[in-house]
């Protein structure tokens, strides 16, 4: 029955995707003749191999950076008594709160030719040492660092649910903290790490903004920008190649998930939430904790601090000319004034909050159920997993067009309503919810559910009263993560909103197209502040109702 719901939601855009890749699109948007030429163009284009190589390096590089930094942060935060570790959450939220494109732009401002870093290098070491951010390392770094909040949140929720008695045992047997982390903690967190690998790797293959903003200017093509360049020039909607690429990625995802499922068949290794009671304990580091504190601070600066400072700086400028002594004398609040003035910004805030909250609230419990069924090998569970993860490979704009066609043709007046945007948004973020939930479920030992059922509880009851509460840590992280992303989404809601259902991200996209980087920076800062406020409220709510397990 769940499968039915999923199919209704996800099948239409998937079918659209497949159709778009095998039929030509006529001038009026309808489908023409069957053709395999998009696949052909994809694989035989002049730049295919170089783009493929670039994409692989980019994907692996950014995944490694993200997972490494995120895991280290998570271990330090969840397992040690490092002072100041709570701030890492704030850092993650701020990072996620900054619209991704703006986050990338902030990095380009820092590392660009006229940015402060090059300014320092120039004056210290001369013109030879100037770095060029429009390069492979620039792309990989920015994408990797942008994903750290995701990896951190997921790993921290995994670690929070992990019984620390294993680590205690190790340390009591004489292992030093680092060895303990390496052999015990990391192994325990393996389901989480694998989930992340899947997510981040596939996301990097599908990623477009960073390669377009950073790579293109350095003439580095990945597959997505390659497709973009060869199919968008005329301005007509030709998603054929895009669709073909996504279909290929879809097949890869199916394969990867199958492999992931096989591996997690040995999941009992990771089950640490057992009937014996668990208490994630914090390990006292002694003097080492100042080192870890410094590490956290450094990471905070890297992931969140630097871009944020850059945005604040830029938002106070009438125009951006690099960080020069004069620019400090030019500080002005004009950009904020323009933003706060009368206009659709304020009107669309409530729509936006509803969108984000509804998406999260639907996706998180729903994927928890699906993940549970998949992880417990219930009939049809693997299918649920596949279907719920499929949206990961679809470019947002293709999904948007797909949903546009679905809704505009429905006999019920769903077209142009906020509900339609919520539905599309839920589909888009389902894969994230799925991976969070799946990693969380793997840690729960079956014996708890078995005990429940042998005491007479039915499956549904078991799920609601045993599994869900134990999943709370991952669900809370997942909720916040999805909320922050859903409210930022632009390409997806773009075609689905109509007069009266404006949301902030789309309204601000207007600014993005026509505004100067200084106005955008002020918009980013305002937006982030709003997101921090919302997150703080959310945090208080979960505390109040003790939704978190510990």
């Amino acid at each position: 029955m769940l499968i039915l719901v999923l199919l209704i939601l996800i099948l239409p855009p998937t079918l659209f995707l497949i159709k778009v890749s095998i039929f030509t699109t006529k001038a009026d948007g309808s489908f023409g003749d069957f053709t395999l030429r998009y696949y052909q163009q994809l694989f035989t284009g002049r730049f295919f191999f170089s783009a493929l190589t670039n994409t692989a390096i980019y994907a692996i590089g950014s995944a490694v950076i993200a997972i490494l930094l995120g895991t280290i942060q998570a271990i330090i935060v969840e397992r040690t008594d490092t002072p100041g570790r709570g701030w890492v959450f704030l850092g993650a939220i701020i990072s996620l709160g900054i619209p991704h494109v703006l986050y990338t732009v902030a990095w380009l401002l820092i590392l660009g030719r006229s940015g402060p870093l090059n300014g320092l290098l120039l004056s210290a070491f001369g013109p030879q040492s100037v770095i060029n951010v429009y390069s492979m390392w620039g792309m990989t770094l920015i994408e990797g660092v942008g994903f750290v909040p995701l990896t951190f949140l997921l790993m921290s929720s995994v670690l929070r649910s992990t019984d620390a008695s294993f680590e205690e045992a190790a340390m009591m047997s004489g292992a030093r903290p680092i060895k303990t982390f390496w052999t015990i903690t990391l192994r325990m967190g393996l389901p989480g790490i694998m989930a992340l690998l899947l997510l981040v790797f596939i996301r990097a293959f599908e990623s477009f903004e960073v390669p377009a903003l950073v790579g293109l200017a350095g003439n580095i093509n990945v597959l997505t920008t390659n497709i973009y360049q060869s199919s968008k020039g005329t301005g007509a909607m030709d998603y054929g190649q895009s669709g073909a690429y996504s279909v290929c990625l879809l097949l890869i995802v199916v394969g990867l998930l199958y492999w992931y499922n096989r591996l997690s068949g040995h999941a009992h290794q990771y089950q640490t939430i057992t009937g014996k009671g668990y208490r994630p304990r914090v390990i006292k580091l002694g003097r080492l904790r100042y080192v870890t504190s410094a590490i956290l601070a450094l990471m905070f600066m890297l992931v969140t601090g630097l871009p944020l400072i850059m945005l604040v700086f830029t938002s106070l400028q009438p125009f951006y000319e690099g960080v020069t002594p004069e620019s400090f004398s030019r500080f002005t609040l004009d950009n904020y004034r323009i933003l706060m003035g009368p206009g659709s910004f304020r009107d669309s805030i409530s729509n936006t909050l509803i969108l984000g909250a509804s998406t999260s609230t639907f996706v998180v419990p729903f994927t928890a159920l699906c993940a549970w069924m998949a992880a417990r090998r219930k009939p049809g569970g693997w299918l649920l997993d596949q279907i719920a993860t499929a949206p990961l490979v679809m470019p947002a704009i293709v999904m948007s067009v797909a949903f546009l066609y679905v809704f505009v043709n429905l006999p019920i007046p769903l077209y142009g309503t906020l509900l339609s945007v919520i539905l599309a948004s839920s589909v888009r973020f389902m894969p994230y919810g799925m991976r969070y939930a799946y990693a969380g479920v793997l840690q729960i030992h079956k014996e708890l559910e078995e005990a429940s059922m042998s005491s007479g509880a039915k499956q549904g009851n078991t799920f609601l009263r045993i599994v869900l509460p134990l999943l709370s840590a991952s669900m809370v992280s997942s909720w916040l993560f999805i909320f922050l992303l859903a409210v930022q989404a632009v390409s997806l809601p773009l075609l689905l909103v109509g007069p009266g259902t404006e949301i902030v991200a789309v309204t601000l996209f207007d600014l993005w197209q026509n505004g100067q980087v200084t106005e955008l920076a002020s918009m980013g800062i305002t937006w982030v502040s709003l997101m921090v406020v919302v997150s703080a409220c959310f945090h208080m709510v979960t505390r109040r109702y003790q939704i978190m397990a510990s």
Partner: protein
Amino acid sequence: MDRNSMRSEKLSGLGLALMMGATMMLPLPALSLTTEEILNYRGPDREQILLEGAKKEGQVTLYCALIVNQALKPISDAFAKKYPFIKIAYWRADSEDIAAKLMAEVKANNLQADLVEGTGVGEMVIQAGLVQPYYTPMIEQVPQKYRDPAGIWTPTRLSYFSVAYNTKLVPPDDVPKTYEDLLDPKWKGKISWRIGSASGTSLFITNLRMAWGEEKARAYFEKLAAQKIVNFGSGSARTLVDRVIAGEYPIALNIFAHHPFISKAKGAPVNSQLMEPVATTAGTMVVPKGVKHPHASMLLADFILSKEGQTILSKAEYFPVRPDVEINETIKGVVPNLMGKTENFVGSEQLNKYTASSEEIYQNLFR
């Protein structure tokens, strides 16, 4: 039939004819005109018919690419003030997205839009066969060269394209003033342009092909390709100008000529250089087939092209298409006619004709 009945038939036939004649002479209340007739009506009582019809319709929806805060909202507010019985709703998006939405709506028979405006959207939907001709008397105020002979679109605003340069990186003596100046080897690797947009690389190429003819243009492009132009792939023309200001690229091609002027007014080290012929395009307005509120739609079209509507656009730093509306002081300096440069108006037909092949030239020479 006997003689009597034939006679009565003739009489009734005559009576009928008389009645019809009499009815025709009576002033008829809004004789139901078809949508096509309403849209193209040129009679002296046009205003009245539109007002009455609009009262019954009560609403109008505009899909538009204008900036919301400065232009779209003021126009909407002013229109609502003038016609309080018409509820106006608008949706702002880029031209490609407007086209996508419109196509989906028309095909699903679920049309929401009554009027569509943007740069480039007109061309796309005309090609798709989704719009119909209409007439607004305001078009008489627009210079002939900007009009559509087929009467399917009307121009709403003009855009001029120029070269932007950073005044700190490009000394005044070195500023390239013609397209040929761009071939100077010292600019190798220092020029950028915007790809992936109809108003970026393809417009630049189309402009020169139209002005110089294929052969001369082709020779020029081959030399230009040797300059290794940087392909700026993400962001609008405005973003590219920001990059020039920041010193990332000394020169940028085919950007909106007025953007550097606006920044210059704030003290930014940037300037706009018009090169002959100056590529010029127009935003266009079209009416979709199956429009649900034709009367209100026409009133809105009239309004956007009226002096009041065009003045709002001018204040929002757009270039009005009516010569009797004052151009915004900040950006006057980019209007080719005022600066003694020839403009090359690239209209819908030319865009449809040249864009695909211009795009190919880009793919072959400049990637």
